[in-house]
């Protein structure tokens, strides 16, 4: 993305969309993401979240780590690497997946795009090239970090298809969730569009090359204006993803390769990803350990959604059983404008993910004018996602 010769002057790289993001980032609210400077918000988090749920939003996902995995044995390799059956993924489809070390501890989660019979793209939060390469010994394929070769925008919200249509993507009406297609978007040229996102709403991710990034931004913003399209930052997205119940590596769980304290690593079953584990597909990394943990009933944690009384976000709150016994921690929390509920994701010790009933309390320290107010608010375990509008899956999507 940038000239690395001057890395000490610019410790954070800039996204291909940076000129437009910087111009709109009127409060200069920046935060690093995978070594790239990204916008936290563009001035009004509430309006940005509202755009995600009520009109359309544009979010720069270029910093996401992307690996090209290509070769005759790419599918077999991904079957061995990841928890799900990648070889069963049709060309043109996308899979949410995760991968583990030998101990069955999750290294990361991510999305796997099947671009061709022998061509995949794996997108994730953290960098894993050495692990991916060591896993590839004995397979006929190549792995390349293509993070900086691809720019991406996430177009999310009820009017996102209207924006896409206006921009030249009307042909994508038949595109189902977790499918992808190539399309020509006027002056932005050919792009790849996947019906994916991190908001739990109707939405698309649009992939192009860095040299055409600004054309894509300008084109979408121009065509999207009548549909109330606005750029959004990470803070608004975070609220949306909590509403959708999505987890983030190194926020809701610690990547196993970065764990310092050995008890912090988590198996898929312990972070709500147990459904991914395909024990019938043959050998894959972590299979034996996952199987043993299930058989020996040695799983210690679970990841749950919480509905907490009041309206004070429970960020970092400790969870107590009967107000006394510490049984877990909140990993992400927000007051949800969509559901009008105080939501949280939390890691909780088993078996309390099942047996806590109404005995849980969240210990929240609310800072009010330099003094903490300690709140012990009742918290109930509820199903995720907290919010899942029908428009998310409707095909063809609505023209709101």
């Amino acid at each position, binding site marked *: 993305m940038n000239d690395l010769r001057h890395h000490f002057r610019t410790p954070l790289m800039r996204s291909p969309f940076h000129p437009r993001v910087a111009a709109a980032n009127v409060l200069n609210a920046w935060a690093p993401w995978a070594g790239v400077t990204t916008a936290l918000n563009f001035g009004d988090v509430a309006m940005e979240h509202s755009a995600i749920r009520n009109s359309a939003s544009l979010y720069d996902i270029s910093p996401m780590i992307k690996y090209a995995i290509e070769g005759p044995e790419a599918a077999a390799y991904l079957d061995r690497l990841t928890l799900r059956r990648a070889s069963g993924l049709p060309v043109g489809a996308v899979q949410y997946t995760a991968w583990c070390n030998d101990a069955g501890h999750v290294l990361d989660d991510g999305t796997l795009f099947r671009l061709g019979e022998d061509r995949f793209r794996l997108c994730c939060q953290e960098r894993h090239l050495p692990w991916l390469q*060591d896993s590839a010994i004995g397979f006929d394929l190549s792995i390349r970090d293509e993070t900086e070769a691809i720019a991406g925008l996430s177009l999310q919200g009820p009017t996102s298809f209207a924006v896409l249509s206006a921009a030249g993507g009307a042909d994508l009406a038949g595109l189902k969730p977790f499918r992808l297609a190539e399309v020509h978007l006027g002056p932005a040229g050919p792009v790849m569009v996947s019906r994916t996102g991190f908001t739990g709403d109707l939405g698309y991710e649009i992939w192009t090359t860095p040299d055409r990034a600004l054309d894509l931004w300008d084109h979408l913003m121009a065509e999207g204006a009548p549909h109330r399209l606005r750029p959004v930052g990470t803070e608004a997205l975070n609220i949306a993803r909590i509403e959708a119940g999505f987890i983030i590596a190194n926020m809701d769980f610690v990547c196993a390769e970065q764990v310092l304290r050995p008890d912090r690593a988590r198996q898929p079953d312990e972070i709500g990803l147990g459904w991914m584990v395909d024990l019938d597909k043959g050998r894959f*990394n972590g299979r034996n350990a996952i199987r043993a943990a299930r058989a020996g009933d040695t799983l210690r944690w679970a990841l749950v959604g919480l509905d907490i009384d009041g309206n004070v976000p429970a960020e970092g709150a400790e969870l107590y059983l009967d107000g006394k016994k510490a049984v877990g921690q909140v990993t992400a929390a927000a007051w949800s404008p969509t559901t009008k509920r105080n939501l949280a994701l939390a890691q909780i010790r088993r078996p309390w993910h099942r047996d806590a009933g109404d005995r849980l309390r969240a210990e929240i320290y609310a800072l009010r004018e330099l003094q903490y107010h300690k709140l012990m608010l009742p918290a109930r375990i509820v199903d995720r996602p907290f919010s899942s509008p029908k428009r998310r899956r409707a095909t063809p999507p609505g023209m709101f």
Partner: protein
Amino acid sequence: MPTPSFDAIIIGGGVNGLACAGRLAQAGQKVLVLDAADTPGGGALTGEFAPGYRVDGLAHLVTHLDTRMLAALKPERHGLDWAVDAMATTALSSDGGHLTLNGAYGEAVQGLEEAEAQRWTALRGRLLRHTEILRPLREITPPLPGKGGGKGNLLALGRAGLNLRRLGREEMQEFLRMILINVHDVVQEDLTDDRLRGLIAFDATLGAFLGPRSPNSLFLLWHRLSGDAGRIRWPRGGMGALATALAEAVRATGAELRCAARVDRVLSDGDRATGVRLESGEEIAARCVISTANPRTTFMDLLGARQIETGLVRRLTNIRMRGTAAKLHLALKGAPDFRGADLRHRLVIAPSSDAVENAFNHVKYGEFSPAPVMEITCPTAHDPGFAPDGHHVLSIVAQYAPYSPRGGWEAGRDALQAAILKQLEAHAPGIGELITAVELLTPADIAARHGLVGGSWHQGDLAVEQMLFMRPAVGIARYATPVPGLWLAGAGSHPGGGISGTAGWNAANEILGAA
């Protein structure tokens, strides 16, 4: 796969494979040993290297042979006989002032001043006492830190602990002080005679990618002494005869041995090892497959990296295998004269600890030593049948030579040979005139001949960080592997190689315990 006709298939008919086979067969298992070579024995082999001249092809002395194996298999009933039961060592001096250690690692010495002899007696006593602490650990499955692992193992651990306690407070402190120290410091502190210092430094680093000043090098001396407490033996008929006797003893237990049967695949049903496929294409099923091949070769090549998980792949690829020893075989038309040294002794050229260190320096940079240190045996001094009448052979292990030198062995082998011969000439003037045939085995040749990756005789560097529960790697150090039905039993496993059979015997115990 057909129904398994064997309980166990053992890949490799070296001493470890034979030990493992014998132990399992005596316990009633149906065992098949497969060896790629035409004769069993692995690194214990004797053969002709020039018409009429025979020599031990790789290992040429016995210092570690497992006593449990000898007691149970009784190879002496099948022809094992010791030509030398306690070989003396002579540290050669280029001026003829040799130093000779007799008995088990210098019980008595000749050629030392009185005061130095006393210092040596004290140091030797201490080394052997320290060795006693470690010896019980040889014969057990390496315990995992924080976990016990089997009643017999606990007993052995207790014995090691007891031996440590028995030393008394001061000696125990001394043991703990010395445990990770380098051998150079020890000989520098405790001895003054350079010949003796050189010999001890050489013995500690023989077969290792270490110099005397490398950390932990003393530990390898303990390791060496923990076998037969420093006793050196040589079988009548050479190492090949030992292998033959052992193979016969194993056959007598009911185990089946097949030679010229190279395994090219460990078969798996995706979950567990089910048998092997030979180079010929023949498939043989068994309830368990026991590999004495190099651990990396076993998993990455024979089983296939795809059959194991990535963490194990990483640990396997990180095992250090850096052989530094070359083997030189000389055919001589007369007896060499090492300035009066007794040819029946083990002859060592290592003039000082510094000389060993200097020789080691080169190998760090991908070069061989211009002044190598070496261990020489003369089989014909014990058994004239190894050469035509009046002729002799020498078997030489020379250090240090890298597995892949800069510039390659094509260009380097003549120069290495010349360097070794130059050292010999300095200690045995005129030896060059006697030479009628030479065979040089570089670490690369040894790797190619014996499947010893990196030319590492021990199938993985002997080093503290690759011992016990870290040998060959964490997670596969207790002979069992993450692949059910696949076991390790070779030199790459605890306690390492050196014609001992201990790893094979330990593995068999573990397999029987699991059965």
